């Protein structure tokens, strides 16, 4: 059937090019490299595509450079709300969660919906209950907090208050 293929992304339009220092660029390349290693390890051991994307996204969620899991952006209410989904091409089984906070890896919460319920998309407390029943790791606010995302929220709220908020894709994308 041929060899494996894997692709990952860490978001869109988060930083302007002039904000990217050589050190920061190196950090992003290293993080993406770690993520690819994680997914490759699954596929190289004849693991499934579903397991590979699950583990790769867990690795991305664990990297504070990216807007998911640890390092997620803040809402205007100074909270973090996370969404995740996965789909298995073998049988169109899918699991998704929205508006959750707590599971260390939201994609595992999505997978618990796929594996332990008859549903596809669950939100809020119901989704968290499925994650708890599946025995997933939960983390507190300190784990998910990053100064950079907090500063981005304050800057955006300040621009809104001053009437200077632009329609910059880098802001819309978080």
């Amino acid at each position, binding site marked *: *059937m*041929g*060899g*494996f*293929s*894997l*692709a*990952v*992304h*860490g*978001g*869109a*339009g*988060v930083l302007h090019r002039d904000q*990217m220092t050589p050190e920061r660029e190196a950090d*992003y*390349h290293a993080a*993406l*490299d770690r993520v*690819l290693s994680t*997914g490759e390890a699954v*596929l190289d051991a004849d693991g499934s*595509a*579903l397991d*590979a*994307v*699950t583990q*790769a*996204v867990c690795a*991305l*969620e664990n990297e504070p450079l990216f807007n*998911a*899991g640890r390092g*997620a*952006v*803040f*809402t205007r209410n100074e909270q973090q*709300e*996370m*969404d*995740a*989904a*996965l*789909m*298995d*091409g*073998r049988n169109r089984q899918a699991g998704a969660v*929205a*508006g959750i906070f707590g599971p260390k890896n939201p*994609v595992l919460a*999505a997978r618990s919906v796929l594996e332990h319920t008859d549903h*596809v998309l669950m*939100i809020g407390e119901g989704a968290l209950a499925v994650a708890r029943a599946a025995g997933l790791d939960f983390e507190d606010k300190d784990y998910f907090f990053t100064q950079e*995302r907090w500063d*981005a929220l304050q800057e*955006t709220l300040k621009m809104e208050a001053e009437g200077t908020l632009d329609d910059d*894709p880098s802001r*819309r*994308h*978080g």
Partner: protein
Amino acid sequence: TVGAVARDRNGHLAAATSTGGMTAKRSGRVGDSPVIGAGTYADDATCAVSATGDGEAFLRLCAAHEIDARMRLTGVSLELAAEDVIMTELTALNGTGGIIAVDRNGAITTPFNCEGMYRGWSVEGDGRKTAIY
């Protein structure tokens, strides 16, 4: 937003996406990432897709499923289907962002219509690459 798509050695496909949303979003706003067919989709017969960008635009397009549908119904390649959805349809809605996708043969495509992309890919026997912007 982050995501991954894969084809395993048995020819099976999968996609996953995870996000914190947009900075200063309204509480309760949900974008395309957790919506199957918009930001995440996989079918062994066609492709696996994970999207990132303006969630509302990807939702309105049902972007990930639209790519699948074009392949399934017209027989175009993943590359052409994805290119048209992102560069023409998404752009027409004033949406920005992009996707990563893999087809049943393992071919990867990563079209986008804005700056600031963080991507990596690996094809067995052909090594690993990472790219920014």
